[in-house]
């Protein structure tokens, strides 16, 4: 079975993927200066406090931009095309990449549209995805 690219976690990113495996979306926030941090990193880039703590978030946000992917694609995704990949801004202010739920209509997407979190399975991997359909 053809597989998509598999996330390769390291010590600085593993808490994110461990949470995702439990269907929790978690984002770092600096305990010293309260800044939300994405992508994950070992220090707060603003105040350099080590090991910013992970906080579970709802995944609610809005669409900042998106693309609809057409062939040629990886063999694993030949069954998926065309599909939309979103850039979402969470209510906490960080932006993340993830797919639009396959049941949603990408023709109806609009910048600024509210989205909520869904979970998507890709082979053995669980990944965050988003839907415009509300809950």
């Amino acid at each position: 079975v053809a597989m998509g690219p598999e996330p390769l976690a390291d010590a600085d990113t593993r808490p994110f993927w461990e949470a995702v495996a439990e269907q929790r979306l978690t984002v770092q926030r600096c305990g010293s200066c309260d800044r939300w941090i994405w992508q994950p990193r070992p220090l707060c880039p603003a105040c350099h406090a080590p090991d910013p703590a992970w906080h579970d978030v709802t995944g609610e946000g809005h669409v900042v931009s998106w693309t609809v992917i057409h062939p040629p694609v990886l063999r694993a995704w030949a069954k998926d095309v065309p599909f939309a990949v979103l850039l979402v801004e969470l209510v906490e202010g960080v932006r993340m990449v993830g797919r639009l739920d396959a049941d949603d209509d990408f023709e109806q997407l609009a910048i600024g549209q509210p989205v909520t979190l869904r979970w998507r399975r890709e082979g053995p991997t669980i990944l965050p995805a988003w839907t415009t359909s509300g809950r």
Partner: protein
Amino acid sequence: VRHAVVAGVAALPYAKDIGMTERRAGALAILAALADAGLTAADVDGFVRSVWERTTEMEMARVLGVDNLRYFGAVDYGGGAGAPMVAQAAMAVEHGVADVVVVWRARNRGSGGRPWAAQLLAEGQDQFERPHGLVRPVDGMAIFARHWMHRYGWSREDLGRVAVLQRAHAQGNPAALMRDRPMTMDDYLGARMIADPLCLFDCCLETDGALALVLTTADRAAGLGASHDPVHISGYAWGSGSETYAMTSFYGSDLGTTPAKAVADELWRRTGLTAGDIDVAQLYDGFTPQVLVQLHEYGFCDEGQGPAYLGSDGAVGVNTSGGGLSEAYVHGFNLLVEGVRQVRGDAPNPVPDVRHCLVTSGNVVPTGAVVFSREPQ
């Protein structure tokens, strides 16, 4: 004071399949550029390589029988590397670290397969992007493209202007891969989508190509007896911007402003020039929207006015060889060679009386730019 010049350039004929290794193609391009300069491999004492070049500078030195490199170095970030490589070579020459520094790029991207198709482990920044589907360079670009189109009111026709303009330039360039393939706006709009809103003709070509530039001092070049004048390097700058990722700088506070803005500020500050002094521009064109954004980031027009600027009477010539979209795509090295030739006057579509040519590298990665000039600044 040692002034750096480009004494020679060369490009092997571009092809979908060049029929030789990148090592061999690179060596042949370097020898041709040395001959263009009136130099030989025995004169070379420095190399600057792309980090993405599979032939190391040591291997190239062995292939060409070059003894003792007094300078060697490499620059990262794919299409962002070209102008910074020239700049690094210029610094080595200006500081007297080396006298004849070669910059080259050989890439079998036409025949050698698509790198993204083989990358099935997503490490570092990739782990948060690739598993979702942003795998090809065009995919991240398309996220930016929609953002810019929304922010500036650009239509697909506005992106298409870039593609159609450059395709027209290619018709006058015997070396351009698309020289016998004219394209109308209808052709553009009818092309299949690759990563919506970007279609096939928003994307650069997939090319095998090998190019080289030879840098030395103005004094050294003056005595070489080449058939053309050396081209002066009157300025260069690097820039990374903040919160920068390769192709996917989606997460910082200033979404949509590329590292080219920082490069432009630095370049104009260092040279005392402005976009108004530039007679012809080679703006990195992996994808059409990059050209439109650079037009305002380098100060040719107000923010978002790139499409109107391109159609205006006062617009400078942009990507006059056909560029990455219609001549060849070798990480922007053909733009560097074209820039040198425009200043020398031996470009295929010569712009009259060029004093300064701006050449930029990829603007959604850490990048740089260089100004090639007829006279020293």
